[in-house]
C-alpha cells in the first residue's frame, strides 16, 4: 500500500523562502565581497603609512589609549610599515581566495578576522559600510557560498534545489533587516517627518558631497518626495523580505527598491563603501524567481561556462550542524538585543554581556543621518605658514590658502580621510591631532622646507534650506610650530 505524500504546511513552504537564500545569489555575493574587500584594501593602502603606522595619525601608543578595551587587532601588534604591509597582503590573498571560491569558508573566516582587526586598528575611519560588511562576512562563514561558481565547486554535480535554509541564512537575512529597519526607526527628526528636507540637507553636507550633489539641489520638490519615500521604504521594505504571501515577488520588489536607493546614494553622495556593501548585501536576497527569468538564466549559463561545466563528482552542500545552528540562533538573538539596545538603552545587554559583541564585531548602530541630517556642515583647512608669511592649504595639495567651501569633498584624498578629520575634531579623537600634524610635517617639510607652523582648522557653516550663504565659523582644532615638531 503506497503512502500518499504529505503536503507541506504553510510554514514549511514559507520558511525556506523567507529565511532562506538562493545558492546562485550567494555565489554572486561571495564574488562581490571578494572584489569589494580587494578594492577597500587598495584604497586603504594608499594611506597605509598615515592611517596604520607610527608615522601617521594613530601610532600604536595612541591606539592603546583610545581603543575600546574589549577588542582585538592584529594590526595593533606593530607600528612598522612592513608589518602592516604583510598583513594587508595576507588579507588580499584571502580576498582573492574568496573571489575565486578556493576554500571559500576558510577564506571568509580569514577575511572576517582581518576585517575586524583592521577596523579596530583605526576605528576613527569607519562608517556604517564597514560595520555592515564585517557582519555579513560573519554569517558568510556558515554559508555555502562557495557551492556555485567557485574553484571548490568545479566538476561537482549540481543539485536541482538551489534554496538553502539554516540559522546562518536566517541571521544573514535578519542582519539586512536590522540595518534598514533601525535606519528608519532612528529617523525621528523634523527634517524627515515634517519638513521633508532631509535629502536636501544631506546633499548640502560639505563633508559628503559628490560631483553630482550640486545638480540634485536644483529639484527641491523631487528631493522632498525622495525624503518621504526613503523613510517609508526603510520602515516597510524590510518586512517585505519576509512577506507571508507572494514572498518571492515582494522580496524581489523590496530588493530592487533598496538597490535603487543605494545606487542613488552612490551617485549623489560620497560615503565610501556603504552603498556598495548595501547593494551586495541586499542582492543576496534575490529569490529563485529572478533566476528563472530569461536573462538571469543566460547569466547563469555564462557563469557555468566561466567556472567550467558541472561534473559528476558528488559533494554535499554545506549545512551547519545542529549545535552550530543553535549557537547561531543565540547570535541572532544577541544581535537583535544589541539593536534594541541602540534604540533604547534599557534593552541593551549588560556591560559584561557587551564584551562578545565588541570582540566579534557585532557592535552596530544604524542611525544613518538620524534623527536628521546635521543642519551645519564642515570642511577642513590645514594652514601652513611659510617663512615669508604666505599661507598655503596642505589639504588642497599646498595651494594658496582660500577659506571658501570646496565645491565637492573630492579635495580629500579618500573618503577615509574625511571621516578621519571629522573624528579627529571631536573630543574622543583629540589624541590623534598632534600625530596628524606631525604626519603633515613629515610629508611636507621635504617639499616646503620653509614651513614655520601648521594649524588645522575646522570650518563650520549652517546649511540653509533657502540656500542663503551664511558666513562660516572657524574653529582651531590644533596647532604645531616647526620647533615643536623638530623637538618631538
Amino acid at each position, binding site marked *: 500500500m503506497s503512502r500518499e505524500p504529505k503536503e507541506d504546511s504553510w510554514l514549511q513552504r514559507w520558511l525556506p523562502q523567507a529565511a532562506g537564500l538562493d545558492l546562485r545569489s550567494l555565489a554572486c555575493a561571495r564574488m562581490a565581497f571578494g572584489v569589494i574587500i580587494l578594492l577597500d584594501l587598495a584604497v586603504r593602502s594608499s594611506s597605509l603609512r598615515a592611517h596604520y603606522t607610527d608615522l601617521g595619525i594613530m601610532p*600604536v601608543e595612541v591606539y592603546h589609549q583610545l581603543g*575600546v578595551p574589549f*577588542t*582585538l587587532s592584529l594590526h595593533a*601588534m606593530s607600528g612598522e610599515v612592513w608589518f602592516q604591509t604583510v598583513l594587508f597582503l595576507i588579507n588580499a590573498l584571502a580576498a582573492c581566495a574568496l573571489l575565486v571560491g578556493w576554500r571559500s569558508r576558510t577564506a571568509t573566516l580569514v577575511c572576517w578576522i582581518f576585517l575586524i582587526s583592521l577596523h579596530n586598528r583605526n576605528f576613527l575611519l569607519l562608517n*556604517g559600510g564597514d560595520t555592515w560588511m564585517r557582519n555579513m562576512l560573519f554569517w558568510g562563514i556558515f554559508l555555502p557560498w562557495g557551492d556555485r561558481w567557485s574553484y571548490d565547486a568545479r566538476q561537482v554535480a549540481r543539485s536541482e534545489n538551489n534554496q538553502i535554509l539554516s540559522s546562518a541564512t536566517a541571521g544573514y537575512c535578519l542582519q539586512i533587516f536590522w540595518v534598514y529597519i533601525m535606519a528608519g526607526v532612528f529617523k525621528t527628526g523634523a527634517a524627515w517627518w515634517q519638513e521633508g528636507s532631509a535629502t536636501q540637507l544631506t546633499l548640502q553636507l560639505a563633508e559628503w558631497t559628490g560631483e553630482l550633489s550640486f545638480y540634485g539641489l536644483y529639484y527641491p520638490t523631487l528631493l522632498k518626495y525622495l525624503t518621504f519615500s526613503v523613510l517609508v521604504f526603510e520602515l516597510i521594505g524590510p518586512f517585505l523580505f519576509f512577506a507571508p504571501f507572494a514572498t518571492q515577488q515582494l522580496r524581489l520588489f523590496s530588493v530592487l527598491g533598496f538597490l535603487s536607493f543605494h545606487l542613488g546614494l552612490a551617485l549623489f553622495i560620497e560615503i565610501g563603501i556603504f552603498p556598495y556593501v548595501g547593494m551586495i548585501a541586499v542582492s543576496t536576497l534575490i529569490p529563485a524567481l529572478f533566476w528563472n527569468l530569461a536573462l538571469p538564466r543566460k547569466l547563469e549559463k555564462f557563469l557555468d561556462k566561466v567556472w567550467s561545466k558541472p561534473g559528476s563528482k558528488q559533494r554535499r552542500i554545506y549545512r551547519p550542524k545542529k549545535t552550530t545552528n543553535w549557537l547561531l540562533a543565540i547570535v541572532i538573538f544577541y544581535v537583535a538585543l544589541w539593536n534594541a539596545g*541602540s534604540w533604547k538603552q534599557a534593552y541593551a545587554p549588560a556591560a559584561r554581556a557587551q564584551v562578545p559583541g565588541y570582540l566579534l564585531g557585532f557592535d*552596530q*548602530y544604524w542611525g544613518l543621518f538620524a534623527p536628521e541630517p546635521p543642519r551645519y556642515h564642515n570642511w577642513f583647512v590645514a594652514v601652513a605658514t611659510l617663512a615669508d608669511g604666505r599661507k598655503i592649504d596642505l589639504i588642497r595639495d599646498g595651494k594658496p590658502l582660500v577659506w571658501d567651501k570646496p565645491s565637492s569633498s573630492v579635495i580629500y584624498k579618500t573618503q577615509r580621510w574625511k571621516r578621519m578629520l571629522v573624528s579627529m575634531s571631536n573630543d574622543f579623537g583629540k589624541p590623534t591631532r598632534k600625530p596628524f600634524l606631525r604626519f603633515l610635517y613629515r610629508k611636507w617639510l621635504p617639499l616646503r622646507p620653509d614651513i614655520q607652523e601648521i594649524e588645522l582648522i575646522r570650518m563650520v557653516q549652517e546649511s540653509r534650506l533657502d540656500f542663503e550663504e551664511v558666513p562660516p565659523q572657524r574653529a582651531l582644532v590644533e596647532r604645531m610650530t616647526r620647533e615643536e615638531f623638530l623637538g618631538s
Partner: protein
Amino acid sequence: MKSFWDPKALGCFRVGLGLYLIGYTILCLNSGTALFTDQGVLPIYVLAGLNTGKGYGSLYLASRWWAWAYFLLFGQLLLSLCFAIGFRVRLVTIPLAYLLWSTNTRNPLIVGLAEEWVVLLVLAAFLLPVGQAFAVEDSPWWRPASKSLQGATRLVGLSLLLSLPAAWLTEQLFTHPESSWSWLGVAALAGLLIRGRARNLAVVLFAAWTVATWSPDPLLLIGLLVGVAFIRLKSDGDDSADNLIWIPLLMTVLLQLQWVSYRTDLTKTPFPQKILRQKILTSDFYLEVGFSPKLERARSVKLFPRLDDRSLLMRRYLNRLYADPDPGLFSPLMTFYVDRSENLKIGESKTYTIFLHAPGNRGGQFRTQTVTKNSDIWERMPALDRSPLQ
C-alpha cells in the same frame, strides 16, 4: 652515519625544559595582571613609548583586555604541558616559541638571559628529535626528504642549543683571554661535540662551568638542561672519535696546574674569579609611599608587600626600575598601587611621593605625583548609541 643524539637524553631535555616552562608560566600567571595587562604596572601605551623595546610583534599588543593576556598565558601553559608530556611536539614548538617571545617582549623589564635562551631552545626542539622518547604520542619525528637536509636541520638545532654559552664564551675570550675559566668553558663546549660516550665527561665539565658561571641566575637551570641533552647513554659503535676527549681533559689539567702554581706562588696571576657574571640585585629593598610635600613626616607605607611580595617577577621588575629608572614607569606603578590598595572613590585623587630605596644604599629614586583612582573599566564601555567604532 650514526646518530649524534641519544633519543633518551633528548627526551629528558624535553621533559625538563617543559617543566621549567610550566613553572615559569605559573610565575607569570601569578603576577599576570600586574605585569602583562593594561591594568598593571606597564600598560601598552607606556611600553610603546619605552626605549628598551616597544614590544612590537608581541601577541599581547593585539588587545588591551586583561582576559586576552590571560588567554595567551594559559595558552602558553597548555603548550608547555603538551611539550613536557610529548604530545604533538613538532606542532607545539613553533607557537610555543612565539608565545614565549611575545611574553618576553610584552614586559622587557622582567626578561633575563634565561628567558631569551629558552625561546632558542624551544626552536631547537623543533629541529631535533626530542619527541622520540618519554612522549605520549610516539609519532615519528618529521624527517626531511634528504639526508643532507636532515643533517642541516640538526646542525641548526645544535647551534641554537649552544648559541648562548658560545656567545658568552666568545665575549669572555675577547675581554678576558687570560682567564682559564674561559678556556675551561671553551673546552667543555668543544667536548660536547664529541660523538661517542666520552662526551659524558664534557657534559659534566659543562655542568660544572654552568653552575660556577651562572648560579644563582635561572640560566643555571637552562644550562644544566642543555647539558642533559648531550648525554650519551648507549654506545653506537662509532666511538673512534672519542680520542677527542683529550681536549677537555687537557684543559682540566691546565686549569688545575694553574691553580696549583698560583697557590704555590709560582705564578702571580690569581685564580680568575667568575667574570661577567650577571649581577642580580638580591637586596631586600622595598618601596615606601608617603604623602607630599613633607616626606620626612610622611606616613611611610611599605608598598612592596602590598604589590606582591611573593612574586619573583615583580621583584625583578622593581629591581630593574630601581637600577635604571624611567620616569614614565612610575605613574602606572602608582596607579596600580592605588587601584589595589587605597580606598579612594573612582575619580578621586591623592598626591603621593613614591620612594624607592635599597636598604644599605644611600639615596634612592623619588617621584611625586597626583594619582587618580582608575575608573571602573566597565564605565569606559561606550554607549551603544554613540559607539566610537561606528
